[in-house]
């Protein structure tokens, strides 16, 4: 297969729906072999089938990003099927909205273990894999606009996404010191119409219209736009970019 990512393999977490699924499709369009991971087997197999429909190759692996053994398993099975991977998209994460005073320790621990520890483990095992296979790898950590600016009633989510923003910069420094060098960047989506948002606020036309009206470009974000940004950051189009924050938010963060 031809394309910017021909002969490369990319692991995408949270690939059972939303941004992760669209990332799999966009990466496959550029020729990448895909490992789509997530907890929802039905959604993961659907993603794999959609990649197959494009003429691409995709392996679905059941994966809880909180569990280090799952990460070992994902890298081992990826290597077994396609050879050592070249890219990782740390996309899996959960959203959570609750006022600060009502946010419990359990609430905080839950989102922290997924969004922060899950992303940490991904970077760690990707670094190990890239070092062992002598691969010039690339990692994209999906943070959020809410990892750059505050948002009411989202203290736990903002904390986890801010953690991803900062971890990305340290990882970029460490990755640049590796041989071959590994690039690590973060993507900061604004409001993207995915199951993560509709599952929280409802899949309501009036609501998506309201979000669009509140966005400078007067449009609602779609997961395929994020997939284009992820593909840019995984490919050699961004060969000189590391530790950067790429915001894709329709202009919400510009004010």
């Amino acid at each position, binding site marked *: 297969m031809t394309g910017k990512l021909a002969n490369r393999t990319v692991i995408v977490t949270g690939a059972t729906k939303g941004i992760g699924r669209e990332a799999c499709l966009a990466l496959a369009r550029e020729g990448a072999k895909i490992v789509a991971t997530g907890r929802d087997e039905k959604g993961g197999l659907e993603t794999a089938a959609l990649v197959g429909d494009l003429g691409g190759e995709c392996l679905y692996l059941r994966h809880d990003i909180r569990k280090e053994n799952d990460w070992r398993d994902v890298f081992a099975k990826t290597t077994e099927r396609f050879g050592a991977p070249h890219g990782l998209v740390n996309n899996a994460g959960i959203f959570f909205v609750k006022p600060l005073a009502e946010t419990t320790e359990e609430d905080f621990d839950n989102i922290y273990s997924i969004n922060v520890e899950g992303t940490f483990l991904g970077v760690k095992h990707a670094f190990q894999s890239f070092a062992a296979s002598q691969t010039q790898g690339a990692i994209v950590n999906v943070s959020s606009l809410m990892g750059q600016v505050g948002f009411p009633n989202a203290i736990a989510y903002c904390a986890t996404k801010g953690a991803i923003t900062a971890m990305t910069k340290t990882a970029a420094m460490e990755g*640049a010191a590796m041989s071959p060098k590994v690039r690590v960047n973060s993507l900061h989506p604004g409001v993207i119409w995915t199951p993560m948002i509709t599952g929280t606020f409802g899949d309501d036309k009036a609501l998506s219209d309201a979000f669009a009206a509140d966005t400078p470009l*007067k449009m609602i974000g779609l997961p395929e*736009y994020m997939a284009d940004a992820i593909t*840019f950051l995984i490919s050699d189009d961004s060969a*000189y970019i590391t530790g950067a924050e790429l915001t894709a938010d329709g*202009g919400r963060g510009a*004010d």
Partner: protein
Amino acid sequence: MQRSERELAGKVAIVTGASRGIGKAVAAKFARSGACVVLTGRNVDAGTAAAKEIGGGRRDVMFVKADQGSDADWTAVLAHAQKAFGRVDILVANAGLSNNVPTAGMELSQFRDLNRTNLKGPFLGLKHCVAAMRKHGEGGSVVLMSSIVGMVGVPGYIHYSAAKGGLRLMAKAAALELGAENIRVNSIHPGMIRTDMTAGFDEQAVIPRIPLGKFGEGEDIANAALFLASNRGKFITGVQLVVDGGWTVQ
């Protein structure tokens, strides 16, 4: 199933400071991606040669002599673009001057001259190109070529810092103002890129400060500009895309 290599087909782009360096790399990338390209610059010989090299005789790649800081020149550039191609969709305001002068010894005229080209010039370009984009009403994409010096300080470059920091916020303000018309405005922040502007720098002294351990190439900036200018950047406005090999991460 692969995406189109000609993702700017049907688009008309103006690239300033396109005779050499980053601007030339951007113009070449856009031309290869199917755009009609107007290259501008002050040096007719260099600009004409760049357009010829990029276009290889194509009639949709042309050079127009223009000083980015001159309002009259912008009027002329837009007139050329409209006459030749009938529309304008993309502006990359790339032209810029740079020199090292300690602040205490800098004449106001030196400060003013650099900012005329580097800060006022992109404002004029934005103004003229937005007027052209409004004629077709289909929106557009503007890339202001800032610098890492628009994010962090560098001694000896107070005038350049003012210009590049100004471009960063100019892009954000314009993004908010023009978003409803689907005119996107973003800034790119190159670090050390191998061009004539950095030719005098001591590479071996600078490289240890760059995490990726090398200077970037014009192609690296061109890829970023194409990403923002193309449909791949359709939800991106008012952002700063840093292309610096990790320089400012530390």
